[in-house]
């Protein structure tokens, strides 16, 4: 995986619910710290767009879908544990 790969995220949230709000904040902070200038975040509110959640098989919110680089991965929760997220993104070796 190239170091300069672009990260595309889609975050499913339940409106302003607390875990969802926290997940948005955590993801934004994480990207600024670890992936500066190479990330895109799309936030999907399952209340506004329930069909998209259904289409993508999202059964719990907040759920983060990592679209690129492949493979597609999902992380459920507030994304509070940076290490877990790094690991899931395969960035642990680079960040360490």
């Amino acid at each position, binding site marked *: 995986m190239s170091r300069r790969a672009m990260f595309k995220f889609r975050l499913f*949230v*339940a*409106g*302003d*619910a*607390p*875990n*969802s709000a926290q*997940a948005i904040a955590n993801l934004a902070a994480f990207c600024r710290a670890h992936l500066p200038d190479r990330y895109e975040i799309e936030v999907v509110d*399952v*209340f506004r767009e*329930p*069909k998209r*959640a*259904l289409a993508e098989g*999202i*059964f*719990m*919110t*907040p759920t983060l879908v990592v679209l690129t680089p492949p493979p597609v991965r999902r992380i*459920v*929760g*507030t994304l*509070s544990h940076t290490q877990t997220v790094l690991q899931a993104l395969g960035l642990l070796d680079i960040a360490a």
Partner: protein
Amino acid sequence: MKPAKLPSPRDAHEEISALIETLHLTGQRLEELTAGEVDAVADRGGRTFLLRHAQEQLRDSEAAKQAAILNALPAHIALLDAQGIIISVNEAWRKFAGANALQGPQYAIGVNYLDICDRARGDDAAAAQQAAAGIRSVLAGGAKSFSLEYPCHSPTQWRWFLMTVTPLAGNHLHGVVVMHLDITERKRAEQKFKDLLEAAPDAMVIVNRDSEMVLVNAQAVKLFGWHREDLLGQKIDILVPERFRGKHHGNQGGYFEKPRSRAMGSEPRLDLFGLRKDGTEFPAEISLSPLETDEGFLVISTIRDITERKQAAEEIWSLAKFPTENPSPVLRIGREGTILVANQSSAPILATWGRRVGQKVPDDWQKWIALAVESGKCKDVEIECDRKIFSCILTPILSEQYVNVYGRDITELKQAMQELRESERRFSELLQNVGLISVMLDGEARITYCNEYLLRLTGWRHEEVIGKNWFELFIPPESNDAKDVFAAVLASLPTAWHHENEILTRSGEHRLIRWNNSVLRSGIGDVIGTASIGEDITERKEAEAKIAFLNRVYAMLSGINTLIVRVRDRDELFREACRIAVDTGGFRMAMIATLDQSAKKLVAVASAGKDEELLTAIKTILSSSEDAPKTMVARAIREKKAVVANNSQTDPRVLFGKKYVESGVRSMAVLPLMVSDEAIGVIALYAGETGFFRAEEMKLLTELAGDIAFAVDHIGKQERLDFVAYYDELTGLANRNLFLDRVTQYMHSAAADGHQLAVILIDLERFKNINDSLGRPAGDALLRQVAEWLTRRAGDANLLARVGADHFAAVLPEVRQERDVARLIEKSLEDLVNSPFRLNDAVFRVAAKIGVALFPDDGADADTLFRNAEAALKKAKASSEHYLFYAQEMTAALAGKLTLENQLRQALDNGEFVLHYQPKVNLASGKMTSAEALIRWNDPRTGLVPPGRFIPILEETGLIFEVGRWALRQAIADYLRWRNAGLAAVRIAVNVSPLQLRNRGFVDEVRQVIGIDARASDGLELEITESLIMEDVKHSIASLEALRAMGICIAIDDFGTGFSSLSYLAKLPVHTLKIDRSFVIDMTAGPQGLALVSTIINLAHSLKLKVVAEGVETEEQRRLLHLLDCDEMQGYLFSKPVPGDTFETRFLAPHPVPAVS
């Protein structure tokens, strides 16, 4: 989907309970599983369920949001239910509700607000009841909303509130929202506006869109005669006369379409009228201005009664119509002279004439009347009557055959003219006396008028000036533009109205005048000359120039001072200083010249300014030995003070003034640069202005020169510091560091070019002795001379260096063959020996030893090369060779040195050192008197090793201490043994190495050695080389005294090789003087050598010293020495050094047998 069968109520209840329990547990489990990090879950159908905690939180936050919004509002807000009970209030209500009118002890939640309002008493009761009624009507659905403005003044504050009541929720009326908003500010603004309105001087009426008057001020009430209450709410129509109302409506409609301000009198109209209450009308002027308010669009109308003004206008109108009332005389006179008509105002004229209407005018008037009628032209006649003067215009009305006379009272005009003439006279007098030049010229520039001031200023007399050409008399010949200006004045060009030029006085002095020019015209408008007023601004200009000059100098000073702080290089300092002088100081040119100390010549080292030609001329004159001393530059250096020529054109000291003038130089100053009271150079400044250098400027410039000199000195010191880092201060040659740098440079090109390079080290032989005997200054002088000699020889000082006290180094950057180097060195050494150096009026010859290392064979870098050259030099010094190359064998020899050192240590341990003895013989008796002990090394592998091979190693390694001690003990032991054996033991001389004598413990060591036997000291003599003693005379004397006190004899070895000072020789506590073998050899070579030995012997004898000649090898030498009264001799002639046992049997036996081995 089929509806499920309905369960019985009981079962259903249980099932529901179970389901709720399951749901609860599931929810809890889900929370646990997701660690509370999930907000919502979705079922397979995509329906999203918000989990409980998220739901609660969202609800809470929604409520919090609303509360926050309510609390953020400044209004006091309360929610009332349908009964009027307060169910919720916001922060503002809680804190400030007490401030609005509807206060009470109980205004909080749960209280009926309607009851509070109903119960209100006092000032606020009316408002409170109004409020209660409003709330009720909204609650009952009778009104959509209700609002009320009410005052609520506290004793300290004037306050207003707006109360609004709006229904809560839409369909079902649950209650109302009551809001009190503080509108004091708005009310205050309204009140202020009303106050302004009342204070206005004009009547003002404010009208709304419906033409209703909403406000009228006191002036309006007064003007229209209505009561204020009668007007408010009424249509404006009642103030407009009926006949204008229709038009007025149209105007008004138009105004509301396109509102704009219309100021008073901006559109004067005479047809506007106002209508008073009593039905009377008045002419009015009206201004309008639009006013945007909360209550909609209003128009402020300002009305002014212009009745009086209108009347005045009509009076003028009527006067114009009726000549009888004309204040000016109007008469009509028939062509024959009869007065036909005369108005009231003509009375004074008639009285003067003494005529009445119907009579004839006086004769002269008859004549004028006839003339006017005949010619048909108007005539102007003045007539004085009583105290008045009339100007009368006779206007013939030809068709009627009479003349109208229009008189005009010109009494005042006449008076004014009289006054004007008087003022003109005074003005002209003023011109004569003021401090301004007044001069008039005709078209040919001839002077037609001038005032006294010009004459005073210039020294001319009036009659000498009038009629003369202005330019010939007053304008300096070099001012070319004066005539152009004159032409421009005549042509009435505005550019010529003001100008400045110089005029000449009678005595030739220049005065600078600022002129105001105007053109003179004749009555018909032809240009006839010029008139000018001039102010003498010579002094002012000078003062201005002075300030400008000083400013320039200050700016330059500042620039150069900044430079001085920054600059590190002398050339840059000079260059930049000149540039700043020209760029900032505004000088035409600047130059810095320095005194070349060695050539005693001034050299221009930096300059700035445009004129190359002038600079070349200056440089030429400075390099001319004849003219240079006459220059101002040379004078400044000589006198150590600034030289100024404030008019370089006329100053006789300026050598080529004309050239300066051509270059625009008008004055110049040369300032010396003083460093340590010496003028090291000058800075010369050339100004474009005459008289630039006055006291103030010179004070600053002297300071400037001081600053530059300071910087030069500073830079000089800095350079010296740099110099010390890279140069030998004594000789000026490179030091070792710089030399190695240079060698490295040369090595690069040698490597690139594939040729060799040689590093040569030169050691001056016996230099230390010169230093010791003649003192350091002499030594230094010799070193300098040698350095100069080497520089001459090398042709380039950069190839040389001084690398030690008496060590010089040279590099030959390009060597083709080693043979070339050898030849060069041999020739140089020969030349050096043949070159006499003079010190203290004595001639010295210097010999040298040389070591050479070659690149690339002897080292790949400068350091190695240098070290190897040093090694070669050391070897040469130890040998009889004058120069040696560092060769591979030598490296091997050095490598073997370590081995040798070890072998010598072993030799000491194994007792491989032996003493050989060489007898000294009395020349007179031929008997042995003593013997010299000499160390030999009996190497078991190679046999006897010559002393030259191992003594230097012993010295180097410090082994000499131990070996020396051994020799001392051995000699004593031998002596005592011989003596104890009853042999004729002689005193044994032991050589003392320089290291031993320098060792402070030496004396004690000797004492210890001889302490073993009381007779030991009788058998010991110490030989110490002359140069060794001289190295540290004081210490030597002390040590020698101590040794002599022990009964030990002391001999000075190798006498003549050092540079002993005779005065010290006398002081030295020695017994014997040994003449070096070289003198003995030279003795037979010529009379000089013989004389020298003779002198030494006589000298020694006079000092009561015994003299021993060393190296005596021939009978001839022995004979001569005997002849010269030498005491003893030592040498091969008698015996070479022999082993101890040989010495014993051969020389100590009762009948020694002389033998030659």
